């Protein structure tokens, strides 16, 4: 029985590889002056964020009437944006948790940024259910707290209540997972700051890293907890977007009430989430010279995942359409015809071309190696997924059972302003994260590198 190490390293060379990883990742946060483009991007993001702040101010002081929602189309941009953002957040958890469980080690270059993206996306998402209540200062009524109205308790049988639990659990667990993963890297920052004499930064990173010192006994429990959190996050990711899909599927509206929604929404979420990961990481990878850590084949793998999940979404479209005909339910079939030929036919067209046609480009290897093209395609995919949620929501509401209840819908500037604001907030937080926190999971990259096995049994006798 022979055992071969995959790579043989000379002693000392292994450590050089680790130092390079530390240096490359830490330099992003340690640069004295931020990169000019980073400042420009931050300025744009903050401007967009302020537009959002103004939109929220008008909304909260005046009321939901400033939006385009009205009696028949009572959910529109608000819930579309909510589902869109939550969907985007799912890629982060998938990269962290599911790729960990399936031992896809290439995840280590992108998981930290993806987890951060999840948290910021969920924060943006959570704004919409909060604000769409009309009186967001009463949002605490959603929690089962004893009160002087009886006590009146929340209605747990409602999918909107399930959303409250699902999204807040998702936010909490994502933060826990993200933070836990960062602790060893925050310790790295602590030690580097200490060595470079940056005392205040060292203390801040020191407190945040909880005194981590890389003890093997600690790593043992850490690894088990990490594995279990990954194992918990996987069903969590499935459940969150399934619960979001229940908002629609538990109703009786044609186009909404269909049993395939849960897995179809989850597939769509992963699809749009990966597109957003690449939208963010491709420019940053280029700006901060992280090409040797975030490798082209990793990007290629992500393109293939988008292709796969895009096809799942496509097969769901086909199944829905088929069963709408098969069921003999005239309202259901009408709903699908109205999607394609009714007042929102242009949104439907955007949805199908961006979700089914665009990912087909990823079959071609040349495309998978062309980062600018990938970036454009990813943006189109996110646009397509936005339109998918919009089509689902608006067409079923605008063309429901009674023709007397059919309605038009137009968004207002405050709908758009709030959406733009959330994009600004998301990018702003992400840029800040990039500047101040470890953007790549250094300890995981080191652990996944071939050098992590250096000095193993085969190279015994290679030193002294």
């Amino acid at each position, binding site marked *: 029985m022979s055992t071969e190490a995959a790579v043989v390293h000379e002693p000392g060379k292994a450590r050089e590889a680790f130092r390079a990883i530390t240096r490359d990742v830490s330099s992003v946060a340690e640069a004295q002056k931020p990169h000019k483009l980073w400042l420009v991007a931050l300025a744009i993001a903050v401007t967009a964020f302020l537009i959002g702040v103004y939109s929220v101010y008008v909304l909260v002081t005046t009321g939901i009437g400033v939006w385009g929602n009205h009696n028949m189309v009572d959910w529109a941009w608000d819930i579309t944006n909510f589902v869109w953002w939550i969907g985007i957040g799912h890629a982060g958890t998938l990269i962290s948790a599911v790729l960990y469980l399936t031992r896809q080690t290439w995840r280590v270059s992108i998981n930290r940024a993806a987890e951060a993206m999840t948290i910021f996306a969920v924060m943006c998402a959570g704004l919409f259910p909060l604000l769409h209540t009309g009186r967001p200062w009463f949002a605490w009524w959603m929690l089962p707290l004893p009160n002087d109205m009886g006590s009146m308790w*929340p209605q747990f049988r409602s999918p909107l209540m399930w959303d409250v639990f699902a999204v807040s659990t998702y936010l909490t667990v994502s933060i826990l997972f993200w933070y836990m993963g960062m602790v060893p890297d925050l310790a790295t920052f602590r030690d580097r700051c200490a060595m470079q004499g940056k005392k205040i930064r060292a203390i801040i990173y020191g407190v945040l890293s909880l005194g981590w010192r890389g003890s093997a006994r600690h790593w043992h429990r850490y690894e088990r907890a990490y594995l279990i959190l990954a194992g918990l996050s996987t069903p969590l990711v499935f459940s969150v977007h399934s619960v979001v899909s229940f908002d629609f599927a538990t109703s009786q509206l044609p186009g909404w009430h269909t049993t395939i929604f849960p897995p179809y929404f989850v597939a769509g979420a992963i699809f749009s989430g990966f597109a957003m990961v690449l939208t963010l990481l491709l420019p940053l990878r280029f700006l901060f010279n992280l090409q040797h850590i975030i490798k082209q084949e990793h990007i290629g793998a992500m393109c293939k995942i988008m292709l796969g999940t895009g096809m799942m979404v496509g097969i769901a479209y086909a199944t829905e359409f088929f069963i709408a005909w098969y069921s003999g339910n005239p309202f259901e079939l009408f709903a699908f015809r109205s999607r394609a030929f009714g007042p929102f036919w242009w949104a439907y067209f955007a949805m199908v071309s961006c979700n089914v046609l665009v990912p087909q480009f990823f079959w071609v290897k040349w495309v998978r190696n062309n980062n600018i093209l990938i970036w454009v395609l990813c943006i189109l995919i996110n646009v397509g997924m936005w339109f998918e949620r919009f089509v689902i929501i608006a067409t079923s509401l605008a063309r429901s059972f009674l023709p007397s209840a059919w309605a038009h819908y137009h968004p207002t500037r405050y709908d758009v302003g709030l959406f733009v604001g959330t994009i600004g907030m998301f990018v702003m937080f992400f840029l800040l994260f990039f500047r101040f926190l470890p953007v790549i999971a250094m300890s995981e990259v080191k652990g996944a590198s071939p050098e*992590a096995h250096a000095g193993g049994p085969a190279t015994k006798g290679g030193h002294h």
Partner: protein
Amino acid sequence: MATEIETNGNGEGELYGLLAEFDTPGELVEAARKVHDAGITEFDCYSPFPVHGIDPAMGIKRTILPLIIFGGGFSGAMGGLALQWYCNAHAWTWNISGKPTWSIPANIPVAYECAILIAALTSFLGMWIFNKLPQVWHPFFRRDRFAHVTDDAFFIGIEARDRRFDQDKTTKLLQDAGAINVENVYLDPDPAKKQMPKWITAFIVASTAFALVPFAIAAKARNSKSTEPHIHIFPDMDYQPKYKSDQMMDVFADERANRGEIQGTVARGWLTTDDLFYRGLETSEAGAKWTTAFPKTYPDGRPFVVDMDLLQRGRNRFEIYCTPCHGYDGRGNGMIPERVKLTGGLWQARNLIEAPDKDGKGGVAVQMPNGQLFNTISNGYNTMMGYAAQIPHADRWAIVAYVRALQRAQNAAQTDIPADQQGSLR
């Protein structure tokens, strides 16, 4: 590979242990195995990432954390179900779209999320607690080389308190295992350095106190004795641009917002065309007369039935409204006549149940037709005020029925007693 032993400087405190640095993870694992095999237990390995194979080499036992997390998840699920059962199926049950108040299919999502939340919190907190972190300082941090442990360096640290620790022998063990550097680690001799710096303690106390301030304000505000109106941060619809009944309105000459009833209109539910039900009158071309029977139907079409329910209702209403004057037996000796007696006067309410005597005197209430009784309840008679405002029409008829029952009861012949109760007479 040359190794160095640093000799301790002067003025150092007690020896904490040895710190040995290694070049590669593989060597670390082998060295750890040797240390473990030598019977040393108070030692640990330090690395920038978890090293493959080090757990068995060090003899680290599998942690029980997974079991605890499973327990956490299970309690989360049960807790979630219990919460929903309590809130929706027990404390305040509502019928929402016909779903059962205890609807397990609808209760699963929240229970599931609670399970995951509690399991995740258990996992996170449990891991830090078991690892005894945060522990922001450790003696090894005194060594500069140790700062590289989060970068590229691999260490074994052996504590001096281990039973098998011997400064020379253990140092040699580490050198033989391939350490590129072995140094002694001493604690700081200054005992003050062993305590948390005072400013940190002060900071924690101050920030905790500061964090409690909002809660203190809220608690104080709950018991305000102020006569000022509440502060409305969000006025909501508390102040609405509309007029309420008794407000002033300067548009009109009389400055009232209330314009009174509109001539020629009848409020909904107040169109009382049914003379029989609303006034006790049977009307015909010949005129109107008091009915001697009861209405046939209620205004909404339900049949008017004189049954036990009606009599019980009549008794209930009679006892509320009529007994103060007429008494519980209807003879007219209620509480008010009693009080009048106390003040030296003499007054009785009508005796409702006495039959007319041989000369035909008295027994007014017995002889009065039902409709007239009804009218008396509604509009009063002499000192009796009308009760139309207090007693709805249907209840007035119930009282009439009950009064008739009282009259029958007090004026019955022996033959009226049911056969099976004849024997109860004494």
